[in-house]
């Protein structure tokens, strides 16, 4: 499936993923209801919403782990059947393997796609771990890590590949403000370098405004509201008053 470059040329719409009337439930009341959504190539979307509304479920749908009960999902104009190699997902549960050290976990996605040079791989991992502040911890097992260190390890696993779609479920929830800011920077850099589409869940309105070109608000009824983000990439003063006003506006929306 190394045809994405061609695909990108052929498919002139600029749309990476398209959800049409997607509904989903776990056998009870609907979690996702009649969602229509278009994710542009290279754009970033923050997904917000109250706890338990279905954000993780939506990510799982987009990743191909769950099948819509109704409606359809298309990626690069093709119906999505199962998972794709070009989608990277970071789970809310992290799902680190207890038998992998930080280094091994970060290396694994590269080992999955064959035929790459070994040295290059190792260098890339080491560089990424450096950027995530994990260098000293690279030989530790998950149970020897702090919560935030575990989260960063899962992040490394998500960011190391070359995906065209990056799905991240609360990637910075266990990180302190300072670490968080550098990680956010890293995520943005990575996304722009790869020209990947980023869809990430966050409960941090600031993060939503900083990283998302568009804000997707999932409400309790299972429908999605798309909100433009005027604050995105305002270089000089990242967090001015206008930013905080937008924050307060979004919070009101959330309620």
């Amino acid at each position: 499936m190394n045809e994405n470059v061609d695909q990108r040329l052929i498919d002139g719409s600029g749309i990476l993923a398209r959800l049409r009337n997607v509904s989903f439930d776990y056998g009870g009341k609907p979690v996702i209801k009649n969602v229509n959504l278009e994710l542009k190539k290279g754009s970033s979307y923050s997904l917000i919403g109250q706890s338990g509304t279905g954000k993780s479920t939506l990510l799982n749908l987009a990743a191909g782990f769950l099948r819509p009960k109704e409606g359809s999902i298309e990626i690069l104009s093709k119906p999505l059947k199962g998972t794709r190699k070009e989608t990277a997902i970071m789970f809310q549960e992290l799902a680190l393997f207890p038998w992998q050290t930080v280094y091994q976990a970060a290396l694994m996605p590269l080992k999955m796609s064959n035929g790459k040079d070994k040295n290059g791989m190792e260098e890339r991992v080491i560089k990424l771990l450096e950027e995530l502040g994990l260098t000293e911890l690279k030989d530790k097992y998950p149970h020897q890590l702090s919560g935030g260190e575990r989260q960063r390890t899962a992040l490394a696993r998500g960011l190391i590949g070359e995906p065209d779609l990056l799905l991240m479920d609360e990637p910075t929830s266990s990180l302190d403000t300072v670490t968080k800011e550098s990680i956010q920077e890293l995520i943005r850099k990575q996304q722009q370098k790869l020209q990947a589409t980023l869809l990430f869940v966050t409960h941090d309105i600031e993060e939503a405004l900083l990283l998302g070109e568009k804000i997707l608000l999932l409400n309790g009824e299972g429908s999605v509201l798309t909100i433009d983000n005027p604050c995105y990439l305002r270089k000089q003063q990242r967090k001015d008053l206008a930013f905080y006003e937008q924050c307060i506006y979004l919070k009101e929306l959330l309620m």
Partner: protein
Amino acid sequence: MTEKIKRHYRGRRKNKAGELLWGLLSFLLLWEILYLTVKNHTIPSPYLTFLYFPNVGNRLIWHLLASLARVGTAVGVSLLIGVPAGIALSASKGLRKLFSPFVYFIYPIPKVAFLPVFMLLFGLGNLSKILLVIWIIVFQIILAIRDGADQIPKIFYKVMAGYQATPLKNLRYLIIPAILPYIFSSLRISLGISLASLFFAENYATKYGIGYFILSAWTKMNYREMFCGILALGLLGIFLFVLLDIMEEVLVPWSKEETH
């Protein structure tokens, strides 16, 4: 392995030697107690049995080695069959539905009942003996591995599915490491069963093997010789078990040391 880890394991190994000794001692203790309470010559005195050792010592080594070779082959082959089969049964609902009932059906049947069939098909030599032992332990391994693989969190499979991992990579990076503790657990159990089943396998057409040794001492009612054999078998067993423990500690470093 870093120097530190190596030192760590060297320390453990010393412990293990102590364990070996203690296993022997505690067995001797129980034996002495039994000897004193039962007071019947079917249970010889541990002391006299030790004095008897020089009479059989040399022969015993060869018997042990012969048995070890048979058990080693049987356990190895059973793992080669049982681990993939167990994984397959756990992974595929279809296969599970298809084969689990069969395994359930065949598992409780006394495998010795198949002895004639094995003799018929594979002769009286080592082949039929080893196959018999395999036949006895392989179903147990299959079930244990299947139950172990069932315990892998579903989300781990999702991680691998996300990479569109080939079945081989799934094995290498997820399934094998995840079931390693179960492999060890079932190795311990099947090693025990297979050593015990030498009693059947070395029951015919052989003059070597610890099973043969014990059995023939038994039919001759030479209980001192018999207990020398039992002691040797016990020692072989505990040696293999401690070896397994060490291997597990080296290969599953993430498990036992969980202090968090």
